[in-house]
């Protein structure tokens, strides 16, 4: 079936099966930042923003995003302040989980520009980093929020 959506700012028409997950459809489009990992919505590596809210690509039936705005980190083009903050704070090691953290952080900061430590932890409840870079990731969010590095 045809799937019309706004993908990374561009009106796009994709082909999908009605029982396909968004994750698979986006990867077929070459959007490799959306990563198949746990398949049960726990790890956050396939996070995408749908109308600005984080959703699990692995749990979202593709036809459900018909007519909606879908954003992956490819749509940020490396120019987003949150992406820069992750680079400056070195908020990653292997980088596998990073796109999911970046998008989750973007949604958090859009809603709450000055999140507390507890609010950051809550927002990242569904994003796992197996390298354990959480301290630097939280630093990156604080940096993106305009706070000095390491501030507590």
């Amino acid at each position, binding site marked *: 079936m045809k799937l019309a959506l706004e993908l990374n700012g561009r009106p796009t028409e994709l082909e999908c*099966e*009605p*029982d*396909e997950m968004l994750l*698979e459809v986006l990867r077929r489009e070459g959007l490799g930042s959306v990563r198949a990992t746990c398949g049960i919505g726990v790890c956050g590596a396939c996070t995408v923003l749908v109308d600005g809210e*984080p959703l699990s690509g*692995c749990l979202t*039936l593709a*036809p459900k995003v018909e007519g909606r705005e879908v954003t992956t980190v490819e749509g940020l083009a490396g120019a987003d302040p949150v992406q820069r903050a992750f680079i400056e704070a070195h908020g990653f090691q292997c980088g596998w989980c990073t796109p999911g953290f970046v998008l989750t952080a973007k949604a958090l900061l859009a809603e709450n520009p000055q999140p507390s430590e507890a609010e950051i932890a809550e927002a990242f409840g*569904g994003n796992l980093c197996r390298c354990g870079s959480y301290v630097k990731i939280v630093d990156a969010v604080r940096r993106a929020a305009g706070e000095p590095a390491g501030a507590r």
Partner: protein
Amino acid sequence: MGGGTAVEWLAPSSLEEALALRAERGGDTTVVAGGSFLAILMNQGFVAPTSLLSLGKVQELRGIDVVDGELRLGAMVSHRAVERDPVIRRDWPVLSRAFGLVASPRVRNQATVGGVLADADYASDPPAVLCAVNARAVLRSPRGVRQVAIDELILGFYETCIAEDELLTEVRVPAALGPAVYRKFRSRSSEDRPCVAVAAARSAGRLRVVVGACAEVPQHYPDVCAEGADGPIDDAVAREIGAVYAKRMAPLSDSRGSAEYRRRVVAVEVRRAVEMVGADGAGNGAGREGAGGEE
């Protein structure tokens, strides 16, 4: 997923159309609300629907309204919306709190009020709390409308009384007249489903204590709660209610805890929940959550 015979995608844009499709296809189509649980089952290969009826475009199912003091939640209202809605936070804080404890914010963006009830997963948070506050599910079909209590709706593991031509369209919650708490005891990670969930509410001189995640369906014993009529409930009564719940229940064993472990946690968590709603009317949903450990 994908490939093979084409799967049918039905996406009605009105409730009338959705009800007509549901009545026509019955059990041959799988209803999709938020779709998070369904997707997990599909990804794991447990189900492979040949027809999907998505309620995503039915605007009538997205309302959060208060009518004559009663909260009406459309079936497609997300957990995140229940968590954040200012009216629910003010007047039904125990619901905001319980829905806000489900999984992670990302899953709460997707999971819906109607979906979690229709799935009837024993380990979900909302059924116990909705049962404690006397919520009713509205079931519609071309034949008419009926309202069922949560313990009439959920019949067993993943089993409900929803007929093949019916849709769960709304959840109605009476005005909160007294304190209510939801305690979620987790034995693994903070984003996990509960090992033991206890919801307690006092309203109009009645105490309701419902234990979730420990059996096929939410467990509650009105005769045991009859103690908690009016006035403060003292510690001895709270302890007794906890002890009787633990004794009478036949908890299941799963990866979150053995039956024997759960029985001990039930005694403690029920006592704490009763203490929290028993002391006075001040603790409406604002109480601390279960922190793990036992006494």
